[in-house]
């Protein structure tokens, strides 16, 4: 039985790696993607364009505009002359935010009264525009604090809370994105490799031969699990290594426990992929099935939006996303020196998902036998 199983595994590996093109697409692109997307996927706001319509000819609006122009997050500042251009700059997405100073802005400040300026933001890019507004607001508040200090020497400075970001004090986005992508890209590869495997055999007619062979459904599933597990885990491990040595992200946790969690995570993905594959007749169905599973898994994992923001029923479904647990473990292992108890607490649900999905794949394959 062992030799039969070994033969199966070798055959699966060969069918994946024999073709030079499929060898290439298995290994090359995911690594390339890691580098491109790590730099692309930033929710930080830099290099944005801001439009300014200044009806005020006084000193203070100039002062504020100059500070905005000099700010690190601003790439370009465009001065517009008419309200029509002001509107168009936002509508055409030329600017993400547009500042408008009323004619009495400097006069009010000169008279010691509170002055207001309007900021129009592009709600189509709500996330970036909210961050842009927070940056602009900081500049305005700083100016306000200076004015207040100058007006009333020794007067109380406005109280503001000191915000400290633990584990990643400068909020470097790469530290978040690289560990997360190691999970997502490895997951996609594992899913595609497995979901196409049974469907391809079925399309070519070799699945029936496999079923009439002495191999038990459990052996068939194991034979298809091992190569995908190897490839997925290896790829994930390479990306984590790149995170440590190329991107220089601090790694404070346990490498062994992270490797174990990665294997468990890929195993649960292989289970999902094989379940999809066992119900599909063609590779086209399998790939569509994979995507209708993979997209929700990524979206509810907490990668793009925090799970806490989701409605209750969706939070409940999110508990079934293996990626959610892996992301907690991988981020924790990189930055938080996550203790083993916390890792185990997040690892066992992946084990349960793997067990359920792999056994359902076996059941479905066995049913085809009868």
């Amino acid at each position, binding site marked *: 039985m062992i030799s039969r199983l070994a033969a199966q595994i070798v055959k699966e590996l060969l069918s994946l790696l024999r073709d030079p093109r499929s060898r290439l697409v298995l290994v090359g692109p995911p690594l390339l993607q890691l580098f491109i997307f790590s730099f692309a996927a930033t929710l930080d706001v830099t290099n944005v364009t801001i439009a300014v319509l200044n009806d005020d000819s006084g000193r203070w609006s100039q002062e504020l505009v100059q500070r905005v122009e000099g700010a690190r997050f601003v790439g370009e500042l465009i001065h517009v002359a008419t309200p029509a251009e002001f509107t168009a700059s936002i509508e055409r997405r030329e600017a993400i935010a547009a500042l408008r100073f009323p004619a009495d802005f400097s006069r009010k400040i000169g008279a010691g009264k509170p002055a207001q300026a309007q900021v129009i933001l592009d709600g189509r890019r709500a996330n970036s525009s909210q961050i842009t507004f927070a940056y602009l607001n900081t500049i305005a508040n700083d100016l306000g604090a200076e004015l207040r200090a100058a007006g009333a020497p020794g007067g109380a400075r406005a109280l503001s809370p000191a915000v400290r*970001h633990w584990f990643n004090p400068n909020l470097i986005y790469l530290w978040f994105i690289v560990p997360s992508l190691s999970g997502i890209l490895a997951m996609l590869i594992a899913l595609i490799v497995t979901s196409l495997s049974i469907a391809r055999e079925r399309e070519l007619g070799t699945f029936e031969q496999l079923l009439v062979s002495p191999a038990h459904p459990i052996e068939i599933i194991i034979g298809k699990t091992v190569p995908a597990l190897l490839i997925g885990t290896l790829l994930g491990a390479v990306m984590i290594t790149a995170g440590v040595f190329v991107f220089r992200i601090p790694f404070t946790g346990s490498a062994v426990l992270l490797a174990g969690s990665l294997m468990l995570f890929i195993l649960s993905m292989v289970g999902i992929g094989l379940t999809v594959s066992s119900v599909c007749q063609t590779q086209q169905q399998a790939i569509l099935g994979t995507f209708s599973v993979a997209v929700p898994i990524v979206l509810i994992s907490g990668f793009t939006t925090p799970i806490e923001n989701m409605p209750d029923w969706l939070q409940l479904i999110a508990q079934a996303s293996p990626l959610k647990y892996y992301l907690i473990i991988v981020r924790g292992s990189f930055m938080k020196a996550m203790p083993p108890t916390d890792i185990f607490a997040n690892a066992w649900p992946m084990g349960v998902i793997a067990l359920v999905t792999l056994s359902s794949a076996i059941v479905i394959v066995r049913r085809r036998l009868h």
Partner: protein
Amino acid sequence: MQVITDGTQPNTANFVGAYAEGVVRNWLAGRGQAAAPVELIPRFWFNPEVESRRFLLPGAIAIIMTMIGTLLTAMVVSREWERGTMEALMSTPAGILEILVGKLLPYFGLGLIATLVCASVSVTLFDVPLRGSWFALLALSAVFLVPALGQGLLISALARNQFVAAQIALISGFLPALLLSGFLFEIDSMPLVIRALTHVVAARWFVATLQSVFLSGDLWAQFLPNMAFMLAIGAVFFTITAVKTRKSLD
């Protein structure tokens, strides 16, 4: 007073810090401290309540269309190559153009139907406004399908094997549409090289116009240049495919 956030999730940490500062500022203002000397009054156009689903759903339509246009087309045509039936098709009196148009038209129709279904669901169930016209929405989708189908066709001509085609479609179609289209991440904030790369991602031009057609209205001044970009990308894909296919027949 100190606020401590979890920096392992930088975006959330950023928002939480800013919200905490806002709460304190409001509290101080409520306790009769003088109003800030300089105040900025924000107004979020097109999306005053800053609802994220209002800009995420239009982006999601672009992802679905990429899957139908690129992924399905790449699979269905490479299947013909894989099974060797493409040669059989080519030996029939039907011209190569007829074969390809026949292969692509159903997916073109499917893409347009998907747009209609997704848009109806977004408007009725998720309360996303459609401030532009249905005509503009369909016109934009039809134009986007040109590069999407062209990419699928090119992939199938290069791969000729469903497994390889699926991988390439995933990596060159789906992931760029998700990560490089400006749907989730701001293009202006990306490094120069990657910003240049986004110009050849058709989904980038589609996402920007979709968000406009839903949230602000028919802005033809923005639509027309973006449509031109999509058509240009499509033309390149079709040309390369034509050259590749002709060569391989000899």
